[in-house]
């Protein structure tokens, strides 16, 4: 059981990248077998993935991997030919094989031998393949499989295939001679098609992309500076030929930089399917564990998103999915009792809308009772009883994103300890996004996550306060007011304003604290940016509104990370640095300091 290392590091890299791709594909598709069992295209895809890994691992001399993928391939071949139906057992044992396959891959990635034994999995795969003949004869008369749809679907396939007397061939499932013969041509041509496609794309190291992005960002900054200088030159020297040439050239450069920026951003985009791919398996396993039957639908896998966001949205999504399966969806008996279909539907969709990516997670489960959330929040002392009763049901439901709230009394292994939804919200907000929930008791729950296309660029409001320029991300700004001194009152020496029926404290960005009554009188009107959510709202006093545009956010560096209310910095058109405010933190810290 030695690790195959008689290949160059580069070859190994290529192998691992390819294996990664194929494993991801298997991960995605095998679970799909349960739902649309006999789908020939799907089966073909899975078969090809296993076949590819078998081939390349053999080339590498990785015996255990070859042995395993060969057994999987043989079983898949039977499925493909309709000699076996994708029963729960078959899918289980394929998934088990896949898990072992992943362990083998990890072994190679870490260059560290662990005692992964493929024998039991291979034996199981062969055993299941061996049953093909029996299943064939029985013609799946008894559909014990809980997923009715799939069994009916594959029954058709079985009846068809039963016409040819293929029992001996099928029984040799574990034998190496079952290899594809007639169908090989099809695979070859498909493989060739694949080659042609591959030749048009190149694998690029992510770091190279990041560097590229950094350089483009610098260009973007220079672009704004150049436009400014140009304007200044024009106003100073007016209609000079040289100046006009310069403007024309710089206009062109600006155009090219714009396109370059867009293209580089597009290169960094990945289809969200790369993330969604692993979810069907997760949901399936959870549902099994909870003895719930559900149909997990994934939509909009092609939606593209910056890879940084894709990486960071994973944990929040997993959390919401777990919640949906664990708490959202009822057990089959319970569903039946209230007149719902036994199989619940959980739908995860992604789509683009006006420069944002929207991800929704909808279940048709029991829903959230607004009053329970109200009670829980009051009990935990998160909101005053009076305040809670004033909230609309939707507002009350969104209190579940506060720390420590769980309406489910019993904590299960999966979730329900009241830890998490607040972190989900924090993580999404850290990406410049937002999340909200809607629900109808008895009908289901819908989580909506809105994300920016990329984290590097934000829509922001440029303001100046005490001679420093700040960028307030527009996602948190609700309105902007200009108030006269009469409209500002004080409570316990702290300045507040009345905004419709609410009392809103005024803060200054630089102090992250409520404003004490100033010693000097200010008689002019003041500009106040209102920001926050339905629970915490603050008015940020600024000296001037400068502009509203896109800003490239850069990290402040590790020496300044203890500055809490700043998300980063950006370089302004004139080369100076503007500070990007971390609005959720600003709002949280300023209101908790009262």
């Amino acid at each position, binding site marked *: 059981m030695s690790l195959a290392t008689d290949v160059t590091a580069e070859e190994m890299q290529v192998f691992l990248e390819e294996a990664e791709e194929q494993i991801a594909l298997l991960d995605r598709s095998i679970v799909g077998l349960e739902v649309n069992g006999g789908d020939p295209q799907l089966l073909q895809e899975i078969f090809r993935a296993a076949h590819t890994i078998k081939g390349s691992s053999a080339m590498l001399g990785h015996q255990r991997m070859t042995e395993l993928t060969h057994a999987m391939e043989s079983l898949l071949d039977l499925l493909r030919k309709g000699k076996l139906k994708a029963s729960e057992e078959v899918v289980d044992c394929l998934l088990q094989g896949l898990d072992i396959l992943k362990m083998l891959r990890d072994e190679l990635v870490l260059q560290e031998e662990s005692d992964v034994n493929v024998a039991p999995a291979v034996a199981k795969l062969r055993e299941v393949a061996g049953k093909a003949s029996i299943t064939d004869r029985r013609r799946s008369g008894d559909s014990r499989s809980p997923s009715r749809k799939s069994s009916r679907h594959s029954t058709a396939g079985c009846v068809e295939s039963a016409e040819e007397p293929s029992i001996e061939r099928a029984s040799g499932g574990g034998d190496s001679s079952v290899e594809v013969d007639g169908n090989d041509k099809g695979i070859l041509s498909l493989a060739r098609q694949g080659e042609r496609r591959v030749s048009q794309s190149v694998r690029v190291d992510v770091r190279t992309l990041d560097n590229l992005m950094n350089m483009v960002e610098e260009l973007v900054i220079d672009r704004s500076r150049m436009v400014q200088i140009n304007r200044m030159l024009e106003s100073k020297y007016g209609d000079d030929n040289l100046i006009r040439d310069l403007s024309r050239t710089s206009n062109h450069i600006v155009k090219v930089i714009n396109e370059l920026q867009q293209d580089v951003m597009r290169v960094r985009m990945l289809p969200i399917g790369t993330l969604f791919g692993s979810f069907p398996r997760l949901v399936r396993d959870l549902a099994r564990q909870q003895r719930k039957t559900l149909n997990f639908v994934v939509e909009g896998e092609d939606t593209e998103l910056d890879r940084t966001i894709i990486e960071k949205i994973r944990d*929040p999504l997993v959390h919401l999915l777990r919640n949906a399966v664990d708490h959202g969806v009822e057990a089959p008996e319970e569903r039946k009792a209230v007149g719902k279909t036994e199989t619940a539907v959980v739908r995860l969709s992604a789509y683009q809308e006006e420069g944002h990516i929207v991800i929704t997670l909808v279940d048709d489960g029991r829903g959230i009772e607004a009053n329970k959330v109200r009670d829980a929040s009051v009990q935990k002392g998160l909101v005053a009883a009076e305040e809670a009763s004033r909230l609309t049901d939707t507002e009350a439901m969104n209190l579940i994103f506060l720390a420590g709230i769980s309406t489910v009394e019993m904590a299960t292994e999966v979730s329900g300890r009241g830890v998490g939804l607040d972190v989900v919200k924090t993580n999404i907000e850290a990406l410049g996004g937002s999340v909200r929930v809607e629900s109808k008791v008895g009908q289901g729950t819908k989580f909506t996550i809105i994300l920016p296309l990329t984290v590097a660029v934000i829509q922001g409001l440029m303001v100046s306060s005490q001679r420093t320029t700040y960028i307030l991300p527009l996602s948190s700004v609700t309105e902007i007011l200009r108030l006269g001194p009469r409209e500002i009152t004080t409570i316990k020496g702290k300045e507040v304003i009345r905004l419709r029926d609410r009392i809103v404290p005024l803060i200054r*960005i630089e102090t*992250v604290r409520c404003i004490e009554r100033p010693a000097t009188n200010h008689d002019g009107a003041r500009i106040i940016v209102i920001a926050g959510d339905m629970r915490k709202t603050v008015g940020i006093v600024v000296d001037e509104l400068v502009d509203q545009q896109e800003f490239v956010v850069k990290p402040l560096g590790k020496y300044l990370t*203890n500055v809490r209310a700043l998300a980063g910095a950006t370089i302004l058109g004139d080369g100076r*640095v503007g500070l990007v405010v971390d609005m959720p933190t600003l709002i949280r810290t300023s209101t908790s300091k009262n």
Partner: protein
Amino acid sequence: MNSKTKTPAELQLVLFDLASEHYAVSSQSVREIIRMQSITRVPGASAFVEGVTNLRGRIVPVLDLRKRLALPVGGESKEMRIVVVEAGNDYVGLIVDGVSEVLRIPYSLIEPPSSIVYGPDADYILGIAKLETKLVILLDTGKLLSTDEKQAVSASTHGIESEVSSVVG
């Protein structure tokens, strides 16, 4: 490359002035020296952090070295420079009164610092170079950030980690 085979007998230094004293950092850590430029104050940062500046598209924190070394605060002058040094993977700018020269001196001229003169906290002082005309204090750029600052940094990273783990849990 050579440093592996034999230790160089000389050290190359960038010399600068601060409150009529002479200081130096190893030229290896110096990335570049720029004129004073617009610095954006960062609210909430340590007192000796003057703010952040734009170094060709990069956000660089700038320290007021006088404040950091507890020297008397001085006025502005045309000679003032920002010495940009590399600290780990980051750049940090140090405001100095003026850069005087770049010099090669043999190690034999460097004396270790005495804790009697500089106090026990001055671990950012590498030693004193005894030149013919003046004494030059060698600074360890890596240690110019106070321990407090570093603790604060690691504390905030820790907070993030625990948040992440609770999402999964």
